[in-house]
């Protein structure tokens, strides 16, 4: 009887563990191969961009985003919150957003952020950032292909080959170093992180309570009052 109980328990545990492992491998495998083709976005159409920034340079409030283009939370925040910020605050000239790209998750982060920074020379960084978030694959699976860069660049009105070449230039290295230094100085410990404050004034690191617009809009409203 004792031996039978042991067999029942071990068999049950083995089936449970095997089911979970198989489901995990299947789920991870699907995520690995499900990089969708990027869809064109008109989120930034008609909004002024200048290098790393989007929005009116004279906007009273500045938001600085520290992000890794492979970070799922960053992509989730971009999908859930960025459209509301652009429509309600950036387009109305109240908010300017600056992007500081980090590449701590690995090679695909590096390749994507270099292409995005390279696009800042043509004032199209935010189109590239938006395109990468909307096409995000699993980390370091090789999802940031030359084709993908080409597709997102084309939608932004840029040349993918030129962006890849520019991504290796020394000014892009310097921009990445500046972003890392700024993140360290601000006390950034994870992504996405944000600094918020009056334009030209002291920016404060934000303790984000939600990935939804409500995580930031009350703070922006306070600064606008």
């Amino acid at each position, binding site marked *: 009887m*004792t031996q039978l*109980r*042991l067999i*029942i*328990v*071990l068999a*049950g*545990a*083995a*089936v*449970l*563990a*095997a089911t*979970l*492992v198989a*489901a*995990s491998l*299947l*789920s*991870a495998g699907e*995520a*690995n191969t499900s990089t969708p083709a990027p869809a064109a976005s008109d989120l930034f159409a008609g909004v002024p961009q200048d290098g790393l920034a989007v929005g009116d340079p004279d906007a009273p409030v500045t938001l600085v985003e520290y992000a890794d283009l492979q*970070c*799922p*939370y960053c992509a*989730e*925040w971009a999908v859930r919150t960025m459209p509301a910020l652009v429509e309600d605050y950036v387009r109305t000239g109240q908010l300017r957003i600056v992007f500081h790209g980090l590449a701590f*998750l690995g090679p695909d982060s590096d390749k994507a952020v270099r292409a995005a920074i390279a696009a800042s020379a043509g004032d199209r960084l935010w189109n590239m950032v938006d395109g990468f978030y909307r096409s995000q694959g*699993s*980390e370091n699976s090789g999802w940031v292909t030359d084709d993908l860069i080409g597709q997102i660049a084309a939608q932004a009105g840029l040349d993918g080959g030129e962006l890849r070449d520019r991504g290796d230039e020394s000014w892009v290295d310097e921009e990445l170093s500046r972003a890392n230094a700024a993140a360290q100085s601000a006390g950034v*410990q*994870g*992504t*996405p*992180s944000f600094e918020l404050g009056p334009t030209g004034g002291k920016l404060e690191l934000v*303790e*984000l*309570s*939600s*990935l939804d617009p409500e*995580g930031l809009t009350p703070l922006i409203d306070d600064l606008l009052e």
Partner: protein
Amino acid sequence: MTDARLRSVSAILALTGAGIAAYLLQVRSSGATLLCATGGCETVQGSRYAELAGIPVAALGLAGFAALFTLALVPGEPARLANAVVALGALGFGAYLLVIQVAVIGAVCQWCVATDLVTTALAALAVLRLRPESHRRETPRGAHPPRRARAAWRG
């Protein structure tokens, strides 16, 4: 150790594990930053292995620990067997996730290691509960002493 005592310790451990899983789930839904000494928590929690068919692994962990807590409160053979199945199954899945962290993701999350330790302890207690000697009941407080002891007391 009696079954009642093993169940009490199991219940406390299951609550601890549920607390860790709930914290991971709360951080995931709010987008807040994880407290992390190893530096790999964000990488692991943001990886494609942090979800299973769209369900966060932390949510599965919370459900698993809740089940183990409930089973720890219930005496009897069916609950004992179910507790052992769930605890050993969770131990196997936890071992797989640890291998994934080290070999595939290349980062280790301290919270995952903490839940692995809790699960290991729960599995050990579940195995102990299967031993025949743990099934004996304690003499309730204030009850009469066993017959043989009573005879000796009478002289």
